[in-house]
């Protein structure tokens, strides 16, 4: 019974509610996003010489594009969320195909222009790759310390305990030093 209730509540989420849920990382919103629109992208990618895994990657990437735009407050939907997701997925797949030397043969839905949004996304991609690279080069324990604090959101006290610092001030100083090193590594590449 409760399962049915949950199900029906999920299906009533509107585009706006889905977007809010996506920004908050709400499980029910993410589940509905998959249930509702993934088959469309799956159909598109597999109709255009892609595999099921390709489709999964493309859809995940498309959701990330939307997520980051919502978080940055720069999403202005001029169409249905469905159409937007299709258009973004289409662009992402088009790029993949181009790298493989192939082209889209058939559109399975109507699409809108997402050129500007994709330019923003490519910029964020570059930043993301660079950050991953910089963190790799940062080495331990700095990398884990920063990841614990900024990504896993551990408290300063938990980090102090985990890394065996005498007090949290020491941990803070250590974190600051790590951050500055990361900054040098990151911006040495990024600002070029």
């Amino acid at each position, binding site marked *: 019974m409760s399962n049915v209730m949950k199900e029906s509540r999920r299906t009533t989420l509107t585009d706006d509610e889905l977007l809010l849920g996506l920004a908050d990382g709400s499980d029910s919103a993410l589940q509905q996003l998959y249930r509702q629109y993934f088959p469309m992208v799956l159909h598109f990618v597999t109709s255009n010489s892609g595999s099921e895994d390709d489709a999964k990657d493309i859809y*995940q990437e498309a959701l990330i594009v939307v997520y980051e735009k919502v978080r940055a407050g720069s999403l202005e939907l001029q169409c249905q969320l469905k159409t937007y997701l299709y258009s973004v997925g289409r662009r992402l797949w088009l790029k993949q195909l181009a790298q493989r030397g192939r082209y889209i043969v058939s559109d399975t839905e109507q699409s809108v222009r997402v050129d500007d949004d994709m330019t923003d996304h490519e910029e964020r991609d570059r930043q993301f790759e660079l950050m991953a690279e910089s963190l790799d080069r940062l080495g331990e324990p700095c990398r884990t310390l920063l990841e614990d604090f900024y990504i896993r959101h551990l408290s300063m006290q938990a980090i102090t305990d985990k890394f065996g610092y005498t007090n949290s001030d020491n941990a803070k100083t250590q974190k600051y030093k790590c951050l500055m090193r990361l*900054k040098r590594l990151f911006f040495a590449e990024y600002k070029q």
Partner: protein
Amino acid sequence: MGTNDEQEIENALRAYGDRVRLRQKLAAVQAAVDMDAMRQQADDLRSEPTPMRSWWTNYRTTLAVAASVAVVTTFTSIFVYRSYQNGHQQQQQQYSQLSKEIQAVKSSQRRILNDLDGRGRALNAAVASAQIAGTGFMLTADGYLVTSNHTVRDADSVYVQSQQGAVYKARVVYNDQPHDLAILQLCDDSAFRQASTAVPYGIDPRPSDLGERVFTLGYPRDEIVYGEGYLSSSTGYQGDSTAYQVAIGVNPGNSGGPLLNEKGNLIGIISGKQTTAEGVSFAVKTDYLLKTINSIPTDSLKGQPLRLNKKNTLTTLPRKQQIKRMMACVYQVSVFKHRQ
């Protein structure tokens, strides 16, 4: 410590973290997704494009354009047609023919008293129930009159009434629709006595000059009414070269009245006025009256030739005397039609 520098790298790191965490979440949701159901739905989408659907997909742009063109064309046609219609109506409205429609014209008591015999009464009663009224005037002393064609058009019977109140039945001899002229004859009526004197005015077939002083007599009401003005243009309504534009006050009922210049020469026949402008009236040029007279078939004249008066006896008279002389040959024309 540069807080700014710190914030910049912290933001970059947080954005990185957000994406990492979202990826993990998405991977988890994706792993839980029922891929069989997804495949099934994707297959449903695949089987959807039926021939009709793909035809629709391929041609919908063309169809949309065709539909838009059809819609635009339809509405443009309607618009153009309507504006043409409106324009046409306006033209008709702007030009008003000056025959007078009458519900019940009351004959003045004086006329009934003056004409005590039964015949006069019957005719007066007939005149009283006329539907259209205009003006006409004698062309010859022996009973030919001219009036506006629009006054007598589709008439069942036509009666004319003199300024003294004598009523005669008239026969329409000839209609000249293009110039809006009609020739009537009174001699069918045995009561009509040929006038002892010829008509007093002359006919000037030459084009008159702008500024020529003119006057007219007519029956916008039961009494004869005098009006004067000047010739303001050598063409009529919308450049009609068969008519003059005259600045003169005329009203319904004036149609068919004579337009005379200061010398007492007939230069036109009142035909209409423009309703959208003040003092813009029109009169058919006498040149066309002469052409109309010449084109009457001999049969219609019934052996009584229409001989126009050549001598003008008004030339030297003062205006009041001119009017008095003219009044005798200007008639009220009453027209009867079957009511539909």
